[in-house]
Protein backbone atom coordinates (compact mmCIF):
# COMPACT_ATOMS: atom_id res chain seq x y z
CA UNK A 1 0.00 0.00 0.00
CA UNK A 2 0.99 3.64 -0.25
CA UNK A 3 0.83 6.16 2.59
CA UNK A 4 1.33 9.90 2.78
CA UNK A 5 2.62 11.34 6.02
CA UNK A 6 3.73 14.59 7.58
CA UNK A 7 5.90 12.70 10.10
CA UNK A 8 9.47 11.45 9.67
CA UNK A 9 9.72 8.23 7.64
CA UNK A 10 11.17 5.29 9.56
CA UNK A 11 12.63 2.81 7.01
CA UNK A 12 13.49 0.20 9.68
CA UNK A 13 9.87 0.03 10.75
CA UNK A 14 8.60 -0.06 7.15
CA UNK A 15 10.86 -2.89 5.97
CA UNK A 16 9.40 -5.19 8.61
CA UNK A 17 6.05 -4.98 6.83
CA UNK A 18 7.59 -6.74 3.84
CA UNK A 19 8.79 -9.84 5.66
CA UNK A 20 7.42 -12.84 3.82
CA UNK A 21 8.48 -16.47 4.21
CA UNK A 22 8.45 -16.80 0.39
CA UNK A 23 10.76 -13.80 -0.12
CA UNK A 24 14.47 -14.27 -0.67
CA UNK A 25 15.13 -10.67 -1.68
CA UNK A 26 14.38 -7.23 -0.31
CA UNK A 27 15.16 -3.97 -2.06
CA UNK A 28 14.38 -0.41 -1.02
CA UNK A 29 14.86 3.13 -2.27
CA UNK A 30 15.01 6.27 -0.19
CA UNK A 31 14.79 9.72 -1.74
CA UNK A 32 16.66 12.28 0.42
CA UNK A 33 16.62 16.05 0.49
CA UNK A 34 19.78 17.33 -1.27
CA UNK A 35 21.47 20.64 -0.57
CA UNK A 36 21.60 21.82 -4.19
CA UNK A 37 19.63 21.67 -7.41
CA UNK A 38 20.79 22.91 -10.80
CA UNK A 39 23.55 24.99 -9.25
CA UNK A 40 21.38 26.60 -6.58
CA UNK A 41 22.05 26.04 -2.87
CA UNK A 42 18.90 24.57 -1.33
CA UNK A 43 17.94 25.25 2.30
CA UNK A 44 14.84 23.05 2.57
CA UNK A 45 12.00 21.60 0.51
CA UNK A 46 8.26 21.84 0.84
CA UNK A 47 6.07 19.01 -0.49
CA UNK A 48 2.41 19.30 -1.31
CA UNK A 49 0.17 16.39 -2.33
CA UNK A 50 -3.40 16.03 -3.45
CA UNK A 51 -3.94 13.01 -1.26
CA UNK A 52 -7.07 11.38 -2.72
CA UNK A 53 -5.49 11.00 -6.15
CA UNK A 54 -1.91 10.52 -4.94
CA UNK A 55 -3.13 7.51 -2.98
CA UNK A 56 -5.30 6.03 -5.73
CA UNK A 57 -2.65 6.56 -8.42
CA UNK A 58 0.01 5.13 -6.08
CA UNK A 59 -2.07 2.00 -5.51
CA UNK A 60 -2.40 1.63 -9.28
CA UNK A 61 1.38 1.76 -9.68
CA UNK A 62 1.94 -0.83 -6.95
CA UNK A 63 -0.69 -3.03 -8.61
CA UNK A 64 1.07 -2.72 -11.97
CA UNK A 65 4.35 -3.79 -10.34
CA UNK A 66 2.64 -6.77 -8.73
CA UNK A 67 1.21 -7.80 -12.08
CA UNK A 68 4.64 -7.63 -13.73
CA UNK A 69 6.44 -9.41 -10.91
CA UNK A 70 4.49 -12.31 -9.34
CA UNK A 71 4.73 -12.81 -5.56
CA UNK A 72 5.92 -9.23 -5.05
CA UNK A 73 5.20 -7.43 -1.79
CA UNK A 74 5.43 -3.65 -2.19
CA UNK A 75 5.00 -0.65 0.06
CA UNK A 76 5.59 3.08 -0.32
CA UNK A 77 5.51 6.15 1.91
CA UNK A 78 5.80 9.81 0.82
CA UNK A 79 6.34 12.83 3.06
CA UNK A 80 4.57 16.16 2.75
CA UNK A 81 5.23 19.49 4.44
CA UNK A 82 8.57 21.14 5.14
CA UNK A 83 11.63 18.88 4.95
CA UNK A 84 15.21 19.69 5.91
CA UNK A 85 18.43 18.63 4.14
CA UNK A 86 19.10 14.91 4.63
CA UNK A 87 15.52 13.95 5.49
CA UNK A 88 13.80 11.10 3.67
CA UNK A 89 11.09 12.37 1.30
CA UNK A 90 10.03 9.07 -0.18
CA UNK A 91 10.55 5.41 0.67
CA UNK A 92 9.82 2.44 -1.60
CA UNK A 93 10.34 -1.12 -0.46
CA UNK A 94 9.70 -4.45 -2.12
CA UNK A 95 10.29 -8.09 -1.34
CA UNK A 96 10.15 -10.98 -3.78
CA UNK A 97 11.43 -14.53 -4.19
CA UNK A 98 14.56 -13.39 -6.14
CA UNK A 99 16.72 -10.25 -6.31
CA UNK A 100 16.30 -9.50 -10.00
CA UNK A 101 12.56 -8.87 -9.68
CA UNK A 102 13.14 -6.92 -6.46
CA UNK A 103 15.58 -4.49 -8.13
CA UNK A 104 13.38 -4.10 -11.20
CA UNK A 105 10.14 -3.63 -9.27
CA UNK A 106 11.66 -1.06 -6.91
CA UNK A 107 12.99 0.89 -9.89
CA UNK A 108 9.65 0.70 -11.70
CA UNK A 109 7.72 1.95 -8.68
CA UNK A 110 9.92 4.96 -7.86
CA UNK A 111 10.17 5.98 -11.53
CA UNK A 112 6.39 5.89 -11.95
CA UNK A 113 5.69 7.62 -8.63
CA UNK A 114 7.85 10.56 -9.60
CA UNK A 115 6.02 11.25 -12.83
CA UNK A 116 2.45 10.24 -12.01
CA UNK A 117 1.53 11.20 -8.45
CA UNK A 118 -0.03 14.64 -7.91
CA UNK A 119 2.80 15.74 -5.61
CA UNK A 120 4.74 18.95 -5.96
CA UNK A 121 7.89 20.29 -4.34
CA UNK A 122 8.94 23.83 -3.71
CA UNK A 123 12.61 24.51 -3.17
CA UNK A 124 13.57 27.17 -0.67
CA UNK A 125 17.03 28.47 -1.58
CA UNK A 126 19.81 29.73 0.66
CA UNK A 127 19.64 33.14 -1.05
CA UNK A 128 16.05 33.60 0.14
CA UNK A 129 13.97 32.96 -2.98
CA UNK A 130 11.97 29.82 -3.79
CA UNK A 131 10.60 27.94 -6.77
CA UNK A 132 8.37 25.02 -7.69
CA UNK A 133 10.45 22.20 -9.17
CA UNK A 134 9.69 21.49 -12.86
CA UNK A 135 7.22 24.37 -13.21
CA UNK A 136 9.86 27.05 -13.49
CA UNK A 137 11.72 24.96 -16.02
CA UNK A 138 8.57 24.42 -18.09
CA UNK A 139 7.76 28.11 -17.98
CA UNK A 140 11.28 28.98 -19.15
CA UNK A 141 11.17 26.53 -22.05
CA UNK A 142 7.64 27.56 -23.11
Amino acid at each position, binding site marked *: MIEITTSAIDPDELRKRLFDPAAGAYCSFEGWIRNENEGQAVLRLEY*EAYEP*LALSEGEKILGEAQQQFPHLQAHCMHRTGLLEIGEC*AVWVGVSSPHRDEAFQACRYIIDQLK*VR*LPIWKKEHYVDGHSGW*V*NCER*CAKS*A
Partner: protein
Amino acid sequence: MKTITVRYFAMFREHAGMDGESLSLDADTAADVFAATSARHGSTEPSGHCKVAINDVMADWDSPVNDGDTVLLFPPVAGG
Protein backbone atom coordinates in the same frame (compact mmCIF):
# COMPACT_ATOMS: atom_id res chain seq x y z
CA MET B 1 -22.71 27.98 -20.25
CA LYS B 2 -21.69 25.42 -17.64
CA THR B 3 -20.92 25.94 -13.99
CA ILE B 4 -17.52 24.36 -13.36
CA THR B 5 -15.70 24.27 -10.05
CA VAL B 6 -11.98 24.60 -10.66
CA ARG B 7 -9.34 23.68 -8.09
CA TYR B 8 -5.75 24.92 -8.30
CA PHE B 9 -2.67 23.26 -6.84
CA ALA B 10 0.94 24.30 -6.08
CA MET B 11 2.13 26.88 -8.62
CA PHE B 12 -1.37 27.28 -10.10
CA ARG B 13 -2.77 28.09 -6.66
CA GLU B 14 -0.08 30.72 -6.14
CA HIS B 15 -0.71 32.24 -9.60
CA ALA B 16 -4.47 32.35 -9.02
CA GLY B 17 -4.14 33.51 -5.41
CA MET B 18 -6.82 31.02 -4.37
CA ASP B 19 -7.47 27.29 -3.89
CA GLY B 20 -10.31 27.26 -6.36
CA GLU B 21 -13.34 28.99 -7.74
CA SER B 22 -16.67 28.37 -9.40
CA LEU B 23 -16.83 29.65 -12.96
CA SER B 24 -19.47 29.92 -15.66
CA LEU B 25 -17.69 28.73 -18.77
CA ASP B 26 -18.49 27.92 -22.35
CA ALA B 27 -16.28 24.82 -22.18
CA ASP B 28 -16.58 21.43 -23.86
CA THR B 29 -13.36 19.81 -22.69
CA ALA B 30 -10.80 19.94 -19.88
CA ALA B 31 -8.50 21.77 -22.31
CA ASP B 32 -11.12 24.52 -22.66
CA VAL B 33 -11.22 24.92 -18.88
CA PHE B 34 -7.42 25.05 -18.72
CA ALA B 35 -7.28 27.70 -21.46
CA ALA B 36 -9.96 29.81 -19.76
CA THR B 37 -8.28 29.71 -16.36
CA SER B 38 -4.81 30.32 -17.82
CA ALA B 39 -6.12 33.45 -19.54
CA ARG B 40 -7.99 34.51 -16.41
CA HIS B 41 -4.91 34.27 -14.18
CA GLY B 42 -2.16 35.08 -16.68
CA SER B 43 -0.51 31.65 -16.53
CA THR B 44 1.80 30.69 -19.40
CA GLU B 45 2.39 27.08 -18.33
CA PRO B 46 1.76 24.80 -21.37
CA SER B 47 -0.87 22.13 -20.75
CA GLY B 48 1.37 19.41 -22.17
CA HIS B 49 3.42 19.29 -18.96
CA CYS B 50 0.38 19.41 -16.71
CA LYS B 51 -2.28 16.92 -15.66
CA VAL B 52 -6.00 17.16 -15.12
CA ALA B 53 -8.61 15.28 -13.12
CA ILE B 54 -12.38 15.55 -13.32
CA ASN B 55 -14.39 14.74 -10.18
CA ASP B 56 -11.33 13.06 -8.61
CA VAL B 57 -10.59 10.81 -11.60
CA MET B 58 -7.50 11.38 -13.74
CA ALA B 59 -8.61 12.62 -17.17
CA ASP B 60 -7.21 13.73 -20.52
CA TRP B 61 -7.24 17.23 -21.95
CA ASP B 62 -9.87 16.17 -24.50
CA SER B 63 -12.13 14.66 -21.81
CA PRO B 64 -15.59 16.27 -21.86
CA VAL B 65 -16.70 18.48 -18.98
CA ASN B 66 -20.30 18.69 -17.81
CA ASP B 67 -22.31 21.21 -15.87
CA GLY B 68 -21.48 20.81 -12.17
CA ASP B 69 -18.11 19.06 -12.66
CA THR B 70 -15.09 19.77 -10.51
CA VAL B 71 -11.93 20.13 -12.60
CA LEU B 72 -8.59 19.75 -10.80
CA LEU B 73 -5.65 21.45 -12.51
CA PHE B 74 -2.27 19.95 -11.64
CA PRO B 75 0.96 21.76 -12.62
CA PRO B 76 3.97 19.58 -13.54
CA VAL B 77 4.45 17.04 -10.76
CA ALA B 78 7.69 16.45 -8.88
CA GLY B 79 7.38 13.73 -6.30
CA GLY B 80 10.27 11.92 -4.68
